[in-house]
């Protein structure tokens, strides 16, 4: 084990180091509590054997400081007291020490203590790795429950959580969000022509295309069957239109064959609306506006991007 010995008496340090090295441990010695604290932060020992009375920082205060420093790894702390100081033992154990030793150090005693130390640190290590595995699985579970399994984009649940945040941020901090609803043109025809598995596959392709065009900070969700929602943070309706137009053109350029589409390839239509602090309202109203704009895009012949008219921007 890696053991740190803190003692202001050089003869005690020499004896401790000799015993520990003879027992096959790696040992570092320091002369007071502050030095021990620095060595602890630098070399992360598994066991600390510290004299209780030391200049600058006592062994008791060192122990309290280490217990307060929660790094996830357990440090086995043995407090060393001089023969005839029984009250120091109790104070030490109360300060967080795992065990105590009385000076002068006897090899057998030290060896016995280190057997316990090895056992306890192994248990703590096991506990910590189980805990981090649990944390990882939990994170994964949260991630899975917020992702649409087909496209890998955020699902309705993630969207619900995120929209609530956006509404609060707009009201409190004056943030602005541009929202775009994108819908695959004539998707029902696509499914009827190529079958549902091919339909699923093409939705995955659309999601990949949107992800490719999106920039850091943009959020993408699968909104419904063949409908996607894109949220652009701090974007105006105008710049949102530019971004979505890039997505629309990108998908058309990808040229996924769609026999039932007059263009011959798969296309999307999109409607945009903006949530900004100048016009505070519910996110659901903004989404409704975007949906109306999307409807207009469809009515105007599909494969096009339409901003909401309510904000004063008149479609060209």
């Amino acid at each position, binding site marked *: 084990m890696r053991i740190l010995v803190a003692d202001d*008496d050089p003869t005690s340090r020499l004896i401790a180091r000799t015993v520990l090295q003879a027992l096959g441990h790696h040992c570092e010695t320091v002369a007071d509590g502050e030095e021990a604290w620095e060595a602890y932060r630098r070399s992360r020992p598994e066991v600390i054997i510290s004299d209780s009375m030391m200049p600058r920082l006592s062994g008791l205060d060192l122990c309290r400081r280490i217990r307060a420093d929660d790094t996830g790894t357990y440090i086995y702390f043995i407090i060393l007291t001089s023969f005839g100081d029984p009250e120091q033992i109790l104070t030490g154990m109360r300060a967080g020490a795992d065990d105590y030793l009385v000076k002068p150090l006897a090899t057998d005693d030290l060896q016995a203590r280190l057997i316990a130390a090895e056992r306890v640190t192994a248990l703590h290590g096991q506990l910590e790795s189980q805990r981090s595995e649990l944390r990882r699985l939990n994170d994964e579970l949260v991630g899975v429950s917020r992702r649409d399994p087909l496209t890998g984009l955020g699902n309705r649940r993630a969207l619900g959580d995120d929209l609530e945040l956006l509404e609060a941020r707009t009201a409190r901090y004056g943030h602005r969000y541009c929202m775009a609803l994108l819908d695959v043109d004539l998707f029902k025809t696509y499914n009827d022509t190529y079958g549902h598995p091919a339909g699923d596959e093409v939705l995955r392709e659309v999601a990949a295309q949107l992800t490719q065009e999106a920039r850091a900070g943009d959020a993408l969700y699968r909104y419904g069957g063949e409908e996607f929602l894109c949220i652009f943070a701090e974007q105006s309706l105008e710049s949102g239109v530019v971004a979505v137009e890039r997505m629309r053109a990108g998908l058309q350029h990808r040229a996924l064959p769609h026999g039932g589409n007059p263009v011959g390839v798969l296309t999307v239509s999109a409607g945009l609306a903006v949530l900004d602090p100048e016009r505070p309202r519910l996110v659901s109203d903004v989404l409704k506006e975007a949906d109306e704009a999307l409807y207009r895009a469809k009515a105007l012949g599909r494969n096009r991007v339409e901003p909401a008219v309510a904000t004063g921007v008149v479609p060209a």
Partner: protein
Amino acid sequence: MIDGEAGPLPVDDALDATVIAQLRDLGDMAGEDLIGQLVELFVASAAIETADLRRALEAGDATAVARIAHSLRGSSANVGARGLAQLCATLERNGCQPTSGSAWAVLAAAEVELTRVCASLRAL
């Protein structure tokens, strides 16, 4: 300090034979001259500490007396100097009355004992 002050000294009862035997075993186990190194460390630090004790007593610094006596008690016990450790313990306990005559008497006894201990250690 008090080197050469006394004549030939009995060295057999200054050190605890059990402690010395344990240190010898430990040194053999580690393949090091542990006793030699310990004697060197102890003789050097004990000389400084007794001088510091004297100064602290003169200054009437009770905290310093207790601290230094505690330290010397620890290193004495490490080399098996039981008698010296006991004298240090007395000083550590009564350090709050540094000006009292008894503290000086105990210190003087400790100095004499230290000479014996050093001679015994060197003879090992």
